[in-house]
């Protein structure tokens, strides 16, 4: 375990060496941002709307006492979306979508000697392949989380409109009521950390792939599993530290 951790840290150090040519790396960063951000927008939107809607209906169902104001459903749905569902569930989904793609892409490049070709040319292969993905991860995952929060809350509103469990006016009042900026800050910190975890762990798994197609698949699986476990662990640590 310590051997792997050491290799992971060394790989990260190599990834952030001075680029051979900034413009080429910048183009790669842009390409990765589009792939990570725009490419994941669809799945994140669908998940967020449905989770937001389901959360609101469940909260309304559980707080059916006449002593509790109906607007509380909006407040709870908002906070759970901001603090947990949008950053954590989205990141777990992104680990599957982006993480497996990163690990299999880099793993395939390794087993087909494309990484060797880069190294022989004098290119810092970890820098060229991994740093743009990490930069894209830590910038695009927070943006996706912001979109996810917005769509999650919107999903709750749609659920109120369609189900009638909570009136839309109560829901909106609840969303506005007692809002704390800290919850969004926590969500963004989580998103940055999760973006880093997904991209760096999956890139590490891909970079040290050896063998053939079977091992590329195993690297992708390991990358996703380890990322998910680390996301959940980091989620707990950040929540404990910031709230």
């Amino acid at each position: 375990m310590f051997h792997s951790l050491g290799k992971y840290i060394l790989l990260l150090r190599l990834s952030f060496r001075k680029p051979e040519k900034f413009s080429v790396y910048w183009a790669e960063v842009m390409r990765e941002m589009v792939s990570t951000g725009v490419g994941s927008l669809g799945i994140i939107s669908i998940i967020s709307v449905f989770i937001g809607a389901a959360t609101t209906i469940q909260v309304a169902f559980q707080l059916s006492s006449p002593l509790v104001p109906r607007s509380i459903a909006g407040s709870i749905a908002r906070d759970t979306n901001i603090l947990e569902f949008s950053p954590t569930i989205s990141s777990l989904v992104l680990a599957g979508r982006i993480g497996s793609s990163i690990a299999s892409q880099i793993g395939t490049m390794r087993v087909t000697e494309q990484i060797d070709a880069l190294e022989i040319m004098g290119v810092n292969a970890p820098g060229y392949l991994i740093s743009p993905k990490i930069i894209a991860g830590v910038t695009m995952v927070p943006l996706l989380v912001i979109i996810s929060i917005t769509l999650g809350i919107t999903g709750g509103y749609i659920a109120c409109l369609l189900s009638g469990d909570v009136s839309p006016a109560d829901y909106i009042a609840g969303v506005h009521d007692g809002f704390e900026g800290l919850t969004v800050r926590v969500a963004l910190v989580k998103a940055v950390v999760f973006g880093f975890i997904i991209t760096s762990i999956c890139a590490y798994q891909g970079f040290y792939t050896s063998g053939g197609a079977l091992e590329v698949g195993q690297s992708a699986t390991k990358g996703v599993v380890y990322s998910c476990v680390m996301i959940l662990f980091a989620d707990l640590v950040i929540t404990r530290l910031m709230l």
Partner: protein
Amino acid sequence: MIEIQDIYKSFGENEVLKGISAKFKPGKNNLIIGGSGSGKTTLLKCIVGLHEPTKGDILFDGENFTDMSFEQRVPIRTQIGMLFQNSALFDSMTVEENIMFPLNLFTEKTKEEKRERANFCLERVNLKGTNNLYPSELSGGMKKRVGIARAISMQPKYLFVDEPNSGLDPKTSILIDELINELTEEYQITTVIVTHDMNSVMGIGDNILFLHNGKKWWEGSNREIAHTDNKELNDFVFASKFMRAAKAKL
């Protein structure tokens, strides 16, 4: 010139290379041959820096490559071209982008100049007009030629070729050999080729290094190989009936 001095390489307990020394001259096709597991690919990977030798030195025109840091190696690496066994083309890039890739990173040429150089390299390997194709759209022989075009795009002083004929039909194999030979002579490149192919050995082997059990077993030219009494080399080169018949006629 490339000089390797007393190279040893071990993977754990397994000693693959056992004290190999040789000189590879410019303008010559230097072939490394040997049976499977003899250490020829490991030797090639040590020379280009993909493996670090356990012991020994590798000198590129007198500069000790083994002692250098990653940054110090970059100027030498930009003078190295390599053709891999499976071509190792970047599959997310077109043919033209593959060839322009090292130019983008290591030169200050304008886009037009880089495109001109890519076209020249493609013309040189008889693949004019394939600029916008992706590697998945190319045949094995075409991939090898694109690999050569990429390898020569930076006008290398040293060219390394790993199994250039593997997976190719005999006619394409000969074309690839001839192309490597022409480029070596034309640009006075120090070319090092790892091969199993006896047609290449007899056709373009200016200097042949025969490895056996991780040691240099024999060194000489393709003219000398037919007259050697080295048993292991004879067993390897003249293993097929065809080669034995060809030897009998010599």
